């Protein structure tokens, strides 16, 4: 089974919550809630004996687990009396399938990705989302699938250090590739995910046509060639914390990083030395999926998903760990100082494209090979 969902990004959000918690920026409850919101709380040992009236939400662990617990789960329990627990053991498509196949389903709701959601649906492992309970209008367009629905978003964004650049800040990906007018080192991810889209725009392809331009082998090669061209100015980041460090230590002045890390950097960097642009960014949703024959029953889970769509809860999520609301209504409730860092604000949405899992399912492996070659050879 191909796993196309970008789970590293999810784990990274979890890490961010841990960091915030350690800095004292998240209360313990806030922390637990963030974890909950991402679907990461306790991998309770006695899953098999879970009571029918308890909902088990599964995400990717780390800190995001606690934020999810506090923001979505505890508030749901307070409202309905139904206990909700987050399990952070990482609901990969393979695990979900193995669980359903074995007939011992203990998970009710899983934080997955679009690619995995589609594959799991094809394999008949997940349940349809009941759109009479879950509100289709409360998620971003394109994130309501038959057997999966969006829960939050994060983006690949253009981050810059205006101070190091002397105020001469690149505005577009074409600028990023213009080493003459914008000298200095850039950072890109050690994977083509969310990166190839930038290079494609640097070729002059309009944002809306990026994945069309990447539709052919020649198109992919042309975009990869852009990295070859820029490579003397590239330092690669492997993990989210790598990208954060490169900015903190002023190793780079420009980079394509996760918006959730940018959310941290804006507080850590001195005034005027960090900025983010969602211009030409790539926005990726997390997707809820419900395994077949889940113990709490379909209705209960649907009600919980609907609960999580409340804009005020989604704003909490953004405040705590920087993952953006999936509900377009939430944008209006975001505090003005956070709005520029919200991946799903109307202004930021207008300048981004949706991460295309289908493209990655088909092309990622061959593209990665070309990418490594372009960087080192």
């Amino acid at each position: 089974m191909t796993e196309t969902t970008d789970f590293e990004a999810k784990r990274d959000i979890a890490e961010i919550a841990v960091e915030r918690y350690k800095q004292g920026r998240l209360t313990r409850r806030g922390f637990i809630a963030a974890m909950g919101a991402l679907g990461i709380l306790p991998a309770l040992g006695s899953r098999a004996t879970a009571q029918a009236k308890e909902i088990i939400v599964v995400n990717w662990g780390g800190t995001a687990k606690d934020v999810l617990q506090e923001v979505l789960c505890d508030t749901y329990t307070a409202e309905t009396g139904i206990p909700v627990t987050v399990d952070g053991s990482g609901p990969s498509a393979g695990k979900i399938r193995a669980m359903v196949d074995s007939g011992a389903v203990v998970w009710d709701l899983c934080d997955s990705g679009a690619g995995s959601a589609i594959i799991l649906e094809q394999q008949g492992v997940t349940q349809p989302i009941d759109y009479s309970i879950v509100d289709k209008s409360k998620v971003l367009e394109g994130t309501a699938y038959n057997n999966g629905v969006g829960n939050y978003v994060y983006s690949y964004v253009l981050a810059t250090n205006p101070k190091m650049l002397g105020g001469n800040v690149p505005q577009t990906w074409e600028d990023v590739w213009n080493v003459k007018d914008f000298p200095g080192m850039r950072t890109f991810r050690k994977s083509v995910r969310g990166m190839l889209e930038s290079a494609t725009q640097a070729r002059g392809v309009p944002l809306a046509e990026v994945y069309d331009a990447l539709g052919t082998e020649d198109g992919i090669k042309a975009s990869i060639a852009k990295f070859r061209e820029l490579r003397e100015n590239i330092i690669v980041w492997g993990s989210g914390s790598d990208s954060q460090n490169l900015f903190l230590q002023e190793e780079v002045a420009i980079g394509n990083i996760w918006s959730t890390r940018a959310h941290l950097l804006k507080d850590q960097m001195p005034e005027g030395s960090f900025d983010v642009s969602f211009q030409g960014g790539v926005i990726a949703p997390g997707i809820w999926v419900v395994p077949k024959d889940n113990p709490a029953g379909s209705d209960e889970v649907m009600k919980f998903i609907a609960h999580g769509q409340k804009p005020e809860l989604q704003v909490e999520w953004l405040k705590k760990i920087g993952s953006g609301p999936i509900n377009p209504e939430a944008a209006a409730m975001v505090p003005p100082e956070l709005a520029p860092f919200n991946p799903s604000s109307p202004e930021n949405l207008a300048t981004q494209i949706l991460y295309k899992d289908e493209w990655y399912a088909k092309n990622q492996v061959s593209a990665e090979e070309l990418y490594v070659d372009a960087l080192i050879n």
Partner: protein
Amino acid sequence: MPRVTEKFSYWMLVLPALAIMVIFYIVPVLGIWKIAFTEPVTGFGNFEKMAASSAVQTSFIITFRVAAVTTVGCLLLGYIVAYAISNYASRLTPLMVALVILPFWVSVLIRSFSWIVLLGRSGIVNDALRDAGLIEAPLKLMHNEFGVVIAMIHVMLPFAVLPMLTNMRGISGAYVQAARSLGASEWYAFRNVYFPQTMPGVMSGALLVFVLSLGFYVTPALLGGGRVLMISEYITYQIQEFLNWGLGSALSVALLVATALVLLVAARFVNLRATLLDRK
């Protein structure tokens, strides 16, 4: 038959170590070989893919180049240190040997991170040079091969010093004295009398450093900025990022074979048995 019993008792002594090697090393390595030839399909598919990939070829070239430069650097620096310790600092010798061994007590990870602090764009070296007015813009000291080589020489240096030191301490001073008394200059005596006697130490130091460098992972990953991709990091990449165990294993096999080849080639020029076993 007392001889057989004696032999048997030696085997018994070796047995625990041998068992650990076989169970925890040889068997897993064979498992890797098996994966290399059987996943995703049985045959040489992984090796064909590997040979066709220019990224893999470049990575091999980088690996051997970094290992070679590291070896040369370690030998030059290490020879001087070993020479000084064994010939001059008689009373301070224990302290100096301790200083050579000291870095082993600190993890490679920490040492590599320390280099990041030193070599960074706003690191200690760049800041000092800038404050002294020697440079205007920061030098690119890391996130490239230069940084990797500096840090690797630092990590590998003890492996070069120790064999050379052992070797030099076994060389009697009488030879050089004899040469000098017969009228040889200091340099001539060193070059023609002392230096040849240190060759076994130099060779075993070189082999040790080179072979260890080939499989190095932490330092290049941290200081290379993603562009000094050595084979071991490439293997991790295949296995963790793409879950491509077949190709990852094939790369491991190739690295193992390449290392064995290096030893074989070395054996044509150096007497390995004398170099590695008879330290004199």
